[in-house]
């Protein structure tokens, strides 16, 4: 090792190192001399800057991991591989490893991703390769064609397509094109920095001077004078991961305007053709190559930065996004960035100034449709998602408004009860065989909610929300997250941005909403990958920064409920598993304790939703202690039922109440008997405060094969008449 020499101009210390290489030399590796002189540059802020290492010569120019002729590229990423605390010991250890690998010719092991060759940018033009390069079919072949370009701005071209010579005429030519020469053999690790060098390299790989010259002339003729032309040069020198075939390493060569002008003169027969030839020849012999700066974006050689993320599951999906507001606008951006194939943005709202502080719109959007403004800003991201906008009113539902056959996922970010009701109505008449995610936040955005409905879960957001409330309130009534979503009425304060004349909304900042949207979207997508097709799930997530944050999140998974049709009014009946189990266990109990021919029954708790024509059966009880049961009839008692009803109502947050009675017909059809009808009449008319309607469930043939039959009796269905009226009715004098 020589004495350190200070380079005061460039502020580093230079040390010469003479390295004995006999232990490094192997056949097939770098042809080291017996001693290699290496130059180390150590910078003032060492060890926080990695020293540079150079050969004393340029004999290894073009070899892997040797740049600018002599610089030794020791680290693939010095940011992660260089440990300042290891100092020069670590540095020399790395030098030893590098020399060993170079001596064996293993700097780029077979099948491993390659250190890409370099062509030092000397042009200010930038090329972005967005689409994969054509594959060369055989060794030794050369692909000549054109690269179709989109000029994004002055000095930036995006390569958006490749057209081979054979298809030249059949594929429409865009305004900007570049010539393309793709080789099937490797070029040196450092691309030639002179035209002459490049010409020689191409010639060695099967591109004759005549071909290159013809190509130059053709493309020069396509541009006006004083403009450059571009040739994309590629060689198979990249690989994405071990074991995959080599792909083209692409560079863009800029032919400067002077050369193009000369080519113009030659092609179009200028007066002074000789002069043009002379200038072109001089350019070819003496000029340096102008290499454009390249940005790779081809999927064949790059890895997505969101690889393996939850959001990446939306790549290639077709998504219907309902609502482009505080949550929807954020969600939309995430979906576009994740590579969603197509996105339908639905919102009939317009941008108002007040929403700018938390929604992704700007002043120029005020007064315009949200969906259109969002579509415009999303398209400016420049990713290939096809965006469609719709101004439809979602309160009329989604089935009639959209072609759902071409949708893979629905995301409801409206947080709108009318929209949820509309979807519920849709689900009453048709199955929606698409997963659905519904996002919302609590009144002060302190908690977020995400509901996932899998394709074969028959109910919609309204029913899921109801079941979630019942499931969570009874065991977590005082949990801050439960209180945030289902507060006591006295705690509810409506917030109107424009008091008196605007729709109530929640309060929350853009940061709150962006965080909730991202978290809820991720949770929803994750659950879709985990849930069974007939399940639904709600996740309630407190914001970590809110006072509810430390209380932890809550979730409830729901199985699909048994669906039946009520027989008098056609209501849909959804019976929970626990209610089914309760009935089955009571039938078993009566069979065990008395006889399976003895009728039994009990109370039904749930809700009758007249708006949607739906009856929810949440739970049942067995017979109250004062019930009378025999093989002929079952008279449901009332003892203790008031307590149970009150408890169920309270524990469900007033969502599940007494709605009727059930009983069995062990060996006959499940049709109401006279006794049953009398019981209904008593329930609907014989009490001080009778209910509006009552459900009767009769399980026919319960001793062998129980068949549930639901009957809904409205108070108006049963008239109480005097004996005289009855007589007249029977005689046909009074209309029944």
């Amino acid at each position, binding site marked *: 090792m020589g004495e350190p020499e200070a380079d005061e101009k460039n502020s580093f210390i230079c040390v010469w190192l003479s390295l004995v290489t006999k232990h490094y030399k192997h056949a097939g590796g770098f042809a080291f001399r017996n001693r290699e002189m290496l130059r180390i540059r150590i910078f003032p802020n060492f060890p926080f800057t990695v020293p540079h290492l150079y050969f004393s010569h340029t004999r290894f120019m073009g070899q892997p991991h040797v740049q600018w002729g002599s610089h030794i590229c020791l680290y693939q990423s010095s940011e992660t591989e260089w440990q300042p605390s290891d100092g020069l010991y670590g540095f020399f250890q790395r030098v030893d490893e590098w020399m060993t690998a170079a001596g064996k010719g293993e700097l780029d092991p077979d099948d491993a991703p390659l250190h890409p060759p370099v062509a030092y940018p000397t042009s200010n033009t930038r090329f972005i390769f967005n689409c994969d390069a054509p594959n060369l079919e055989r060794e030794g072949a050369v692909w000549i064609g054109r690269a179709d370009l989109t000029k994004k701005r002055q000095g930036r071209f995006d390569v958006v397509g490749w057209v081979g010579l054979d298809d030249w005429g059949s594929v429409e030519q865009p305004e900007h094109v570049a010539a393309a020469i793709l080789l099937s053999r490797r070029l040196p690790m450092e691309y030639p920095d002179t035209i002459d060098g490049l010409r020689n390299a191409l010639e060695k790989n099967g591109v004759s001077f005549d071909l290159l010259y013809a190509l130059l002339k053709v493309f020069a003729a396509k541009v006006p004078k004083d403009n450059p032309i571009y040739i994309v040069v590629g060689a198979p020198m990249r690989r994405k991961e071990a074991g995959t075939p080599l792909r083209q390493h692409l560079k863009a060569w800029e032919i400067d305007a002077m050369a193009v002008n000369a080519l113009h003169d030659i092609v179009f027969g200028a007066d002074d053709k000789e002069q043009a030839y002379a200038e072109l020849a001089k350019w070819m012999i003496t000029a340096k190559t102008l290499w454009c700066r390249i940005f790779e974006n081809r999927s064949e050689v790059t890895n997505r930065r969101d690889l393996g993320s939850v959001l990446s599951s939306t790549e290639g999906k077709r998504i219907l996004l309902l609502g482009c507001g505080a949550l929807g606008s954020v969600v939309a951006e995430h979906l576009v960035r994740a590579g969603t194939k197509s996105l339908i943005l639905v919102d009939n709202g317009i941008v108002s100034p007040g929403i700018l502080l938390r929604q992704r719109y700007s002043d120029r959007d005020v007064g315009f449709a949200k969906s259109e403004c969002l579509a415009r800003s999303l398209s400016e991201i420049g990713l290939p998602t096809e965006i469609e906008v719709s101004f439809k009113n979602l309160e009329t539902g989604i089935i009639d408004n959209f072609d759902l056959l071409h949708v893979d996922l629905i995301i409801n970010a409206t947080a709108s009860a009318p929209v949820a009701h509309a979807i519920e109505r849709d689900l009453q008449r048709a199955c929606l065989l698409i997963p659905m995610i519904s996002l919302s936040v609590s009144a002060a955005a302190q908690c977020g909610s995400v509901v996932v409905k899998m394709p074969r879960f028959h109910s919609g957001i309204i029913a899921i929300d109801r079941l979630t409330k019942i*499931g969570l309130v*009874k*065991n977590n009534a005082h949990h801050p997250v439960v209180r945030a979503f289902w507060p006591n009425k006295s705690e509810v304060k409506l917030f109107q941005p424009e008091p008196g004349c605007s729709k109530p909304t929640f309060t929350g900042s853009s940061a709150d909403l962006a965080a909730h949207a991202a978290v809820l979207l991720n949770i929803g997508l994750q659950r879709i990958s985990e849930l069974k097709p007939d399940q639904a799930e709600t996740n309630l997530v407190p914001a970590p920064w809110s006072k509810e944050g430390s209380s*932890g999140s809550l979730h409830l*998974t729901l*199985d699909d409920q048994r669906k039946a049709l009520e027989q008098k009014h056609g209501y849909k009946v959804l019976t*929970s*598993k*626990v209610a089914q*189990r*309760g009935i*089955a*266990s*009571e039938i*078993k*109990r009566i069979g*065990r304790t008395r006889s399976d021919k003895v009728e039994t029954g009990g109370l039904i708790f749930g809700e009758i939703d007249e708006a949607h024509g739906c009856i929810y059966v949440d*739970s049942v*009880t*067995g017979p*109250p*202690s004062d019930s009378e049961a025999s093989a002929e009839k079952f008279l449901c008692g009332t*003892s*203790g039922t008031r*307590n*149970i009803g009150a*408890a*169920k109502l309270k*524990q469900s947050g007033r969502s599940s109440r007494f709605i009727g009675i059930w009983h069995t017909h062990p060996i006959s059809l499940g049709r109401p008997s006279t006794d049953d009808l009398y019981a209904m009449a008593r329930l609907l008319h014989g009490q001080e405060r009778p209910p509006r309607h009552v459900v009767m469930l009769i399980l026919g043939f319960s001793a062998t094969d129980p068949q549930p039959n639901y009957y809904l009796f409205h108070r108006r269905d049963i008239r109480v008449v005097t004996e005289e009226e009855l007589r007249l009715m029977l005689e046909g004098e009074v209309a029944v």
Partner: protein
Amino acid sequence: MAFHLGCLRALDDLGVLSKVSVLSSVSGGSVIAALYAYNDESFAEFELRVQTLLRKGLVGGIAHQTLFSPETPKIVAAQLTSGICAAVGRLVRLGGSALALAGADRESIGQFTQRFQAPFPRFASRSTAFERHLRKRVFGELTVNQVARKGLDVVLNATELSTGTAFRFGSQETGTWRYGRLAGAPPHVSKAVAASACFPGLLPSFDEFMDFEKDGKKTRHRVMLTDGGIYDNLGITCLLPGRSAEFSTNVSDIDFIIACDAGQGMPSGTARPYLWSSRMLMTVNTIHRRTHSLSYDLLHRMKDTGQIKGFLLPYLGQIDERLPYISDDLVRRHETFDYPTDFSPMKEIDIERLGLRGEQLTKLLFDHYQPNF
């Protein structure tokens, strides 16, 4: 047992019993667990058998086997040999303690007298008579691996007193983590049940040498087995998720626990532990109750942390007013006090009330918590 019978009846009515994958039991619960698991009869037949056993009790059988069976001379012989040796050993230790108090070297004396501590196993006792009764009258020659219910694993939990560890008789394996798996033929069900149920206040421990296998090595150890409730009165420790088979026995993968607890709950507060014996008894009871409530905490924690999906805890001593709701025919807590817990014959009314309370509580908890399976 009667309370557990009611819980099992409710689970059978609810269609859940046949889905149970692991049945873990301690103490008296092991009798009913084994009665269920080692016979594939219908539930009605099983219930009849249990009720008959409850009405008859086990005390008479144990007494008969102790006093009038081939076990009798063995018990006498055990008293005359290991019993006398243990008594002598105790005297030696007392003498040693006296010397130590007089100023002799405590460590040397301790090392010397240690050898005299119960030097020979108690090879026969009322506990072995209990086992003999179970084998002759209840379980026959069945071994713990011969479970009759399809897809069911059984763990009958005992406590190994000399190491203070759980000793688990399992249909898959038997052993304790300290010594490893029991080598050789699987033990009899009667032995497992008797060991799991021999409450130390009434019955001596099973005291014998057993062969074990751990990490490929065979060893022989003297074990002293007693009631499993001493170590874990809820029988849930063998069900805890995340246990490693390397350190524990009978590891299983379960996600929901139904723990039927026949404990009578909070003391009334009328006890006056004035004298030493009552003080000590109350102390043991207090520690026992505390560890018991820690088991409840453990269940809650496992559920909250997602280690299990949930649990149900039908509990005889449950304060009725804390139930989600009370039906008017609920057998109330105070109606089920004062039933015998020493295998004495039970009155019909006690069997009925305890069973009905178990059935009602189990069904009520199912209705309220709606476990998703």
